[in-house]
């Protein structure tokens, strides 16, 4: 039977979340920001899977179920994000988020 410590896994997803936040703050290309959000989201999904693997019988299954639903949510989010990218590209001719200032006062 496989046996591992939980703490290493938690450190990995903390680091992935930090990488995602770093990407969101430093990149200006909309697609790169989407990818950074996906990295952060994957860190969250990983946490559900760890606690599912290291917990009791029924709560573990709930953790995996939530992870399945979250993967679906993340895919939906990418689809909507890319629709916004295409609309922004048509309106502005660029996907630099610094150019999307139409709602500024």
């Amino acid at each position, binding site marked *: 039977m*496989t*046996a*591992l*410590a939980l*703490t*290493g*896994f*938690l*450190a*990995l997803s*903390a*680091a*992935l*979340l*930090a*990488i995602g*936040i*770093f*990407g969101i*703050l*430093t*990149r*200006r*290309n909309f*697609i*790169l920001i989407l*990818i950074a959000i*996906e*990295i952060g989201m*994957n860190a969250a999904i*990983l946490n559900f*899977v*760890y606690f*599912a*693997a*290291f917990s009791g019988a*029924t709560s*573990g*299954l*709930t953790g*995996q*179920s*939530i992870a*399945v*639903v979250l*993967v*679906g*949510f*993340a*895919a*939906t989010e*990418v*689809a*909507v994000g*890319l*629709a*916004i990218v*295409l*609309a922004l*590209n048509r309106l502005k001719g660029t996907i630099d988020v610094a150019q999307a200032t139409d709602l500024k006062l």
Partner: protein
Amino acid sequence: MSLEELAFLGLAVIALVTGLAALLVRELVHTIMWIAVFFVDLAAIYFLLEAPFLGVLQLGVYAGAVTVLLLFGIMTTRKRIFSREAVTGIGPAPLALALVTFLFVISAIGEFSQSEQPIRSYDPTYLSANLFGPNGPWLLLLGLIMLASVSGAIYLVREGRE
């Protein structure tokens, strides 16, 4: 060090390196290649954690669909697909905020036991029973949100919208 620990260490290092590389390389197409490796690596971690159904889902949805969707996004918004991204200076503030987030999350890790625990494996049959039984409302909500977002996405990219 056991074989599982070695596998986890290798997979964790690959995840961190590919995740950072995806955000730091200058060509967007290379970003997509790094992120594909990242998603496959996470699927391997799911298999290591005895969650084969999630691993397959990760391979199909993330490494397959999301990667191709992002690639199409790049293809339709660029004249030349291999054009380089302008490098913006990375100031100290984003680095500091990312570091603070990391330290904040990692400060809570002490609450959990450091010792090795056995990993539970579940039959996917029980997973589907759980998914469609007590967690059925969540699945329904996911379907509704997907429907709404697909309608929204089609509305956004529709031609001739005034």
